[in-house]
């Protein structure tokens, strides 16, 4: 049993990270055998046939030449001019869910109808296809067959100039006849059409950032995020950019959203920031009323820069705070009420071709998280154990966020962990914590990458929105009958590939998982998330950033 599950876990680790962008994944790892995962092999074999609809989006209408992909027993649904459920309109965006149709078109009529459907778009801009689930469905003669659930997203322009995106959830039936895979059915389980007057967000990077700075990317495990605050106190929001493989930059806002590079004039053109940083925070750690800067070196720890009015002074001392690690997010708060701002540092684990976590769902071999207690005068002490933040400090932690979620007057801490459940540290009010994620219903097993506190339902309580990994391949294999393990273990693995989570604050110190009904679950391989009321209508919308590693070729490993 252990052995099978181990094999399953390995497959999970390689497959769960695979997304098929129109191409099915090639087998990875020696244990991926057609005997164990025939659906993956069949899906791969049938990929050309599966992609016939996709190809029609770029190459023009489904022509007679595509006939070979259709079985003589084919039956398909109509897509053109689908009836929609009552439309929702929000800030000029019109959303219509597709109603079911009971059409039963044979191949030729299906192709004609599909071509009519494509003609509803004047121009197709982008297309994505992903495979969610594949199950064995042998053909009538016992020949190999699969039912493949695919999402197909089509973004385009319609004749009146507006942008339209259709999200189709296709159910493709395929059988292998001789050496050829043929489509025997195309249906749509659910679909949605979204239309907007035009983009509301415009990429202004080139206009607002000074020219000529190094925008080059880096290796696979590079991370980082924008650090935003008004560090010079002139009323506008400035930007610090940590960089792992380049020099960190400090940008000052001119008041109208245009930025000047002031790294040198503010004293940050220093060796410690030439490379190696992945995090930062603007915060007043010396309590003198202006914003100082802390910058995290991923491998070495935290640097302190005191704001002297017109420049930053490096007061780190001989070694960075926290010491050697795999440092990730920083989150600051005065947890003990002494009016000095303390800093929590999330610590990950070592990962590369030779190092992996001990478990994909319960890893405890990460580096230790640290709570730095502010002693004043730019001095900090490691208070992790004294404060009771040591339980689960050995998780592979990516992110953390503070909030007085139970409104008892002190700040609590949520930590999002990769390869494990998350942690919720409730502040007892005396500067010590208890880890209550399990009792509070806030474990959220998943590959946690980012977390934000936000009142998403307007009930004046802070809910939790957590970015997790969503994996199409993970969804596929964990749904198979032969995925190893007990029902509980299978459910656990399935959960770890499901996507983001939304935990509603009940107001009694516990949370209700409303992920499934919220619609905020699927956001790909998610990292960051930013709650924002983009249209200023009073409710919080959610921006999720994602995608893991795009190589030179779109094909997945």
């Amino acid at each position: 049993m252990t052995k099978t599950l181990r094999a399953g876990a390995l497959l999970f680790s390689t497959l769960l990270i695979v997304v098929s962008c129109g191409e099915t994944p090639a087998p990875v790892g020696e244990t991926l055998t057609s005997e164990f995962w025939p659906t993956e092999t069949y899906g791969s074999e049938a990929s050309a046939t599966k992609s016939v609809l996709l190809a029609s989006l770029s190459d023009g209408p489904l022509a007679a030449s595509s006939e070979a992909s259709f079985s003589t027993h084919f039956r398909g649904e109509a897509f053109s001019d689908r009836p929609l459920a009552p439309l929702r309109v929000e800030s000029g965006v019109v959303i219509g869910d597709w109603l079911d149709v009971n059409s039963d078109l044979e191949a030729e009529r299906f192709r004609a109808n599909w071509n009519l459907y494509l003609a509803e778009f004047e121009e197709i801009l982008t297309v994505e296809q992903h495979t969610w689930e594949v199950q064995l469905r042998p053909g009538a003669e016992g020949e190999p067959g699969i039912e493949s659930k695919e999402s197909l997203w089509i973004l385009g322009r319609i004749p009146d100039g507006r942008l339209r995106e259709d999200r189709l959830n296709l159910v493709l039936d395929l059988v292998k006849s001789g050496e050829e895979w043929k489509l025997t059915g195309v249906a749509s389980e659910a679909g949605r059409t979204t239309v907007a007057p035009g983009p509301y967000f415009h990429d202004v990077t080139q206009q607002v950032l000074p020219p000529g700075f190094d925008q080059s990317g880096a290796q696979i495990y590079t991370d980082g995020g924008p650090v935003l605050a008004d560090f010079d106190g002139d009323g506008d929001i400035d930007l610090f950019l940590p960089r792992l493989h380049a020099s960190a930059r400090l940008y000052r806002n001119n008041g109208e959203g245009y930025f000047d590079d002031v790294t040198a004039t503010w004293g940050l053109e220093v060796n410690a920031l030439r490379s190696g940083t992945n995090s930062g925070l603007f915060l007043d750690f010396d309590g003198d009323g202006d914003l100082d800067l802390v910058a995290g070196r991923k491998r070495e720890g935290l640097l302190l820069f005191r704001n002297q009015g017109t420049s930053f002074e490096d007061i780190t001392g001989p070694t960075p705070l926290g010491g050697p690690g795999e440092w990730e997010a920083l989150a600051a708060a005065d947890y003990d009420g002494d009016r000095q701002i303390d800093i929590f540092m999330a610590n990950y684990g070592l990962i590369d071709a030779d190092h992996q976590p001990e478990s994909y769902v319960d890893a405890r071999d990460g580096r230790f998280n640290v709570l730095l207690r502010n002693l004043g005068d730019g001095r900090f002490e490691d208070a992790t154990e004294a404060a009771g933040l040591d339980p689960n400090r050995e998780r592979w932690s990516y992110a953390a966020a503070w909030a007085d979620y139970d409104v008892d007057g002190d700040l609590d801490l949520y930590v999002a962990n990769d390869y494990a459940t998350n942690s919720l540290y409730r502040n007892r009010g005396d500067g010590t914590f208890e880890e209550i994620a399990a009792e509070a219903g806030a474990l959220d097993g998943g590959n946690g990458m980012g977390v934000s506190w936000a009142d998403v339902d307007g009930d004046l309580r802070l809910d939790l929105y957590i970015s997790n990994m969503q994996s199409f391949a993970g969804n596929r294999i964990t749904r198979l009958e032969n995925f190893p393990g007990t029902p509980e273990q299978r459910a656990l693995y399935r959960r770890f590939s499901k996507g983001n989570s939304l935990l509603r604050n009940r107001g009694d110190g516990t949370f209700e998982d409303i992920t499934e009904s919220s619609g905020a679950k699927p956001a790909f391989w998610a990292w960051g998330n930013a709650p924002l009321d983009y249209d200023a209508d009073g409710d919080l919308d959610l921006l999720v950033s994602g995608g893991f590693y795009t190589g030179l070729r779109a094909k997945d490993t």
Partner: protein
Amino acid sequence: MASESAGQEEDKDSGHRNHFRLLQEEGLSWSGMEPNTLFQNRGDGTFDEVGNVLGTYLRLDSRGVAAADLDGDGDLDLAVYNRNNPVIKIFRNDTPGQGNVLEVDLTGTDSGPMAIGAQAIASCGERSILRQVEVGSGFISQPPPRLHFGLGDCRNVETLTVRWPSGTEQILHDLPVNQRVEIVEDDDRFQSHPLRARNYNRQDLVPIAGELSAARPNLVFRRLEGEGELSLAAFDDETVVLNFWATWCTACVLEMPDLQALSRRFAGRVRFLGVSLDQEREDSEVLAYAHELGTTYEQVLGTIQDQAPFSSLGSSPPGAVPLTAVIHHGTVRAVFVGQIDVDTVAKLLETL
């Protein structure tokens, strides 16, 4: 899964090494090309994904993201950090027809310098909105500690209740909208700074004056002053400036004094007509508001459908306000989306 044999360890390692080799040497992807996602709240904590049609679509391998009002116009822009080139992307928010906003900076005394963890509740009309001060969230990111309240069409924040970390609760009354206010713990005075006008991306949205020559649409509006209706056809031997606006639209409110000045300057030569899109408000309320802003030209009530024939002359979205159209003898000669430039409009009117 507690124990593993050496053989399984080998499998595991070779699998991963193979994986990295495929990425590095053969240039394959690993969950690549995935767009970022924008979930739009339906108002009750359920969401629709709208990012691809609203322009946040980005196929880079994005990591941290934070929202902030970078250009000081009251709406939240985006800074997106990516693994691959370009490392940073800035997206400006140009959402048309946004609501009013209030931005709040809190300074603590007993609560420590940044009042981290302070929760503030803005009550405006029917609605109460909670925001908290935080330093570090999402994934390795810091959104600014400034609080941002979207208020829809509400124009007066009756109360702002601040729960300071020190334990005190402070209530401020009647805060103006479309301002950034600075509040110090236990001090009921506050400093306020007006926000900049919202910028539409002029290059994208503004058709150029003087080049248009389209027949005026056949529109009939309901009068806000007096009874009955008013048809555009009645002015076919005149020059008309039609200004679509709404009480919740910041840029509209900011440009109305300019329109009033123009109407004075061209009195007797050009007819000015304000078309409010405030279908949900009482007529008398809308009219009172227009007068409060100093306008004396006639006000009527219209719909987004009335505005659409004008916005479609350019590439601007239907419903974008403010929108100002110049109609000369039954022909549309210019359409301006966003806050007008007085000189440009004046120059055009002189030539007609």
